[in-house]
């Protein structure tokens, strides 16, 4: 049963570089601890060449020109760790989370999917790089050997069964992670490598170092065995970026969002998932940070503002460019009201849509592309003006609500398509079509002359007409228990206007001879034109 271990060396530094790739090989120095006791905890290769060492104080490092000093960033480390876990889950569901920078995978049965162990190792390295991390991969027949080899050897290491002791022999004893006390004892004994430790008699070692010595001995020989403690995969993905200088403009913000989305989508891709919803959160610069404080006594610590937008997607997506465009359109409509200090992107994952094409069904818009198109349309016409109309269960005239337009699930073509089309054709076999209505929104105020309760003349928008035929009144009322109750008498009137020359009104309405629907609003005590049959 082979196991693979992934180890990310210099993890704290890599986590920062992953969020800010421009810092790679720029003499980056990470410091940790409370000032003035801040000390260097991680350095890159360029900083090593400058002469900077781990454990130096911040004041010492500041003497080196060109060194970029940053504090440790636990949030980025957490996200980088999540990315490392995603890389593991992209290969095997059986994975143990050993440490922030180390994971172990069970590779049983994966050779048929990914090829030989070497190919699996290469695949893991490739996935790590895609997620912005560089790491070592070791494959061995037991967990401990794989862990030690990943920490001890760079690149891909494959240890065949039976060769564990030989392979690990050259590694320093410290890769076995002994306690400080034991490490000191081993140092005094002159035991420097795993091979030295493996040669020691186990009983004598047990007498002198106890259980820890026995464990270290077994590890050094590559004979330690234990069960895998499986970690449950998470369905939520998060990426975060804290900015040195607050961003106000949408253009630089899009650049940053694009970078975060690239990382997020890469993680989703590694897990073969898509984002079902995307949430963007901004930490905003406090509004009064630069304001003149008149009375110091009244000054209070104001919490920085928050901005949050949730975006539900019609189908799980993982195309970072498309998601970025959708986010941009959303942010253009609702921009944050202060410069942004911190960006957090969270995606709820779902399985991507798998659809089999059907020759007997008509084509329909690609849901991902349609979502983008709708977002662009909303940008033009405003929210609430795009969607699918849905009738409400009421007699209130003209009442409906706009729903989000989603492509309906396909039904059988026999049941829904051809069959119903034929039904419609049969319905119109008599040569008639149902009358449709054009609505005037809002309704146009009108004046009507009545004779014995029936309209005879109408006037609206500067036009006068004679009623040649009428049908009504159709009385509707409802919602009397609510504030927005209604009570109307509707009339269908055939009108011949006196002024036959078309007169354009200010709102573009052209009255023509035809059948109009008027109503008397009993609550507002006035006549209105609801629309026209067309």
């Amino acid at each position, binding site marked *: 049963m082979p196991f693979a271990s992934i180890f990310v060396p210099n993890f704290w530094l890599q986590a920062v570089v992953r969020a800010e790739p421009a810092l790679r090989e720029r003499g980056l120095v990470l410091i940790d601890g409370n000032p003035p006791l801040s000390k260097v905890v991680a350095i890159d290769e360029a900083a090593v060449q400058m002469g900077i060492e781990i454990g130096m104080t911040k004041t010492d490092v500041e003497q080196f020109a060109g060194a970029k000093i940053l504090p440790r960033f636990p949030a980025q480390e957490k996200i980088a760790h999540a990315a490392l876990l995603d890389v593991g889950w992209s290969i095997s569901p059986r994975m143990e989370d050993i440490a922030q920078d180390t994971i172990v995978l069970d590779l049983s049965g994966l050779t048929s999917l990914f090829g030989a162990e070497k190919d699996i190792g290469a695949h893991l390295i490739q996935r790590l790089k895609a997620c912005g991390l560089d790491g070592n991969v070791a494959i061995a027949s037991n967990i401990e050997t794989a862990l030690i080899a990943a920490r001890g050897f760079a690149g891909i290491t494959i240890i065949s069964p039976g060769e564990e002791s030989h392979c690990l022999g050259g590694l320093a004893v410290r890769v076995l992670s002994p306690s400080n006390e034991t490490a000191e004892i081993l140092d005094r004994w002159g035991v420097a490598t795993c091979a030295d430790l493996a040669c020691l008699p186990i009983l004598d070692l047990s007498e002198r170092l106890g259980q820890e010595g026995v464990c270290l001995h077994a590890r050094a020989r590559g004979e330690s065995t234990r069960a895998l403690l499986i970690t449950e995969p998470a369905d939520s993905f998060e990426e975060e970026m804290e900015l040195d200088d607050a961003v106000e403009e949408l253009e630089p913000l899009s650049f940053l969002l694009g970078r975060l989305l690239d990382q997020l989508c890469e993680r989703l891709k590694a897990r073969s998932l898509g984002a079902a919803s995307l949430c963007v959160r901004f930490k905003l610069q406090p509004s009064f940070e630069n304001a003149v404080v008149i009375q110091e006594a009244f000054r209070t610590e104001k919490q920085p503002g928050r901005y949050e937008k949730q975006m539900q997607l019609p189908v799980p997506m993982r195309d970072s460019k498309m998601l970025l465009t959708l986010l941009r359109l959303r942010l253009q409509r609702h921009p944050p009201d202060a410069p942004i200090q911190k960006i957090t992107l969270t995606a709820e994952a779902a399985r991507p849509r798998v659809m089999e094409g059907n020759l007997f069904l008509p084509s329909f818009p690609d849901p991902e592309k349609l979502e983008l198109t709708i977002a662009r349309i909303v940008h033009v016409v405003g929210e609430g003006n795009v969607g699918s109309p849905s009738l409400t269960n009421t007699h209130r005239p003209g009442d409906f609500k706009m729903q989000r337009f989603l492509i309906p699930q396909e039904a059988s073509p026999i049941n829904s398509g051809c069959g119903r089309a034929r039904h419609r054709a049969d319905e119109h076999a008599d040569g008639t079509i149902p009358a449709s209505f054009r609505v005037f929104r809002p309704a146009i105020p009108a004046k009507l002359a009545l004779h014995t309760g029936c309209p005879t003349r109408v006037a609206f928008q500067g036009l006068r007409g004679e009623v040649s035929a009428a049908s009504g009144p159709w009385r509707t009322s409802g919602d009397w228990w609510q504030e927005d109750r209604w009570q109307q008498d509707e009339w269908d009137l055939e009108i011949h206007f006196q002024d036959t020359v078309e007169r354009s009104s200010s709102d*573009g309405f052209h009255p023509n001879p035809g059948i109009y629907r008027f109503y008397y609003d009993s609550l507002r005590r006035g006549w209105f034109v609801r629309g026209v049959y067309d």
Partner: protein
Amino acid sequence: MGSKTSVLRLQVESSLAMRVASPFQFRGRRIVETVPTGVPRIDLQVGGFPRGSLTEIYGPTCSGRTSLLVSALASRTAASEVCALVDAHDAFDPHSAKAAGVKLERLLWVRCRNVDQALRVTDLLVQGGGFGLIALDLGDALPHMVRCIPMQVWFRFRRAVEHTPTIFLVLERETTVKTCASLILKLHAKKTRWSEAVKSTNEISRPHSLGCLLYGWKIRAEMIRSQAKREDRSDAGFGTEIRRNIRCSTADERGGQRQR
């Protein structure tokens, strides 16, 4: 002579090289697929709405333009297609559309405020693709506003829907699409049918009784242009009748009530 022609041909080809791949290549006549309009009598005359082309329906108010459009929407949505309606002046009535058989869940309705918005939205929808029918309703737009739309807009729309299964319908008061349209239908209203005979307007003191019901009205359609039928104008128009759904007096305790 022959060399001159070949030189000219070469010049034309080189000047159009970046835009047209082979300008002198013969392009065979495209076989246009048509789908039912939802009105059998119109289908009989015009053969249905052509796919991948522009169809223009124009006529005055109450000429049955909207009824024909809604009928087409009902026909396409019933065939499981996804349709889009760009409503330039927010005049669409979902209630009458539902009654006419439109599956509203398959209809993307965009409510615009003016012609400019409607054109921009249509452009986005046409470029997005995948719709069975895209309808641009300019029925309430002022004719002079519609006449101001540059011809290139219609050319662009025609080009965008070409070789796609999309039916592009334009609803107007006056014809403006002209040569860009594969099918142009002109509609006008005929006699209205009431349940009771209407008296002459000169004599009226009361033009109806309380029992009078609107049954519908007849419309006359005229095929001005059809590429599918290779006819530029049919002298004889053809009529159909628009049927008004008779109101019912059912009561619904939740939403209110209707009474006569």
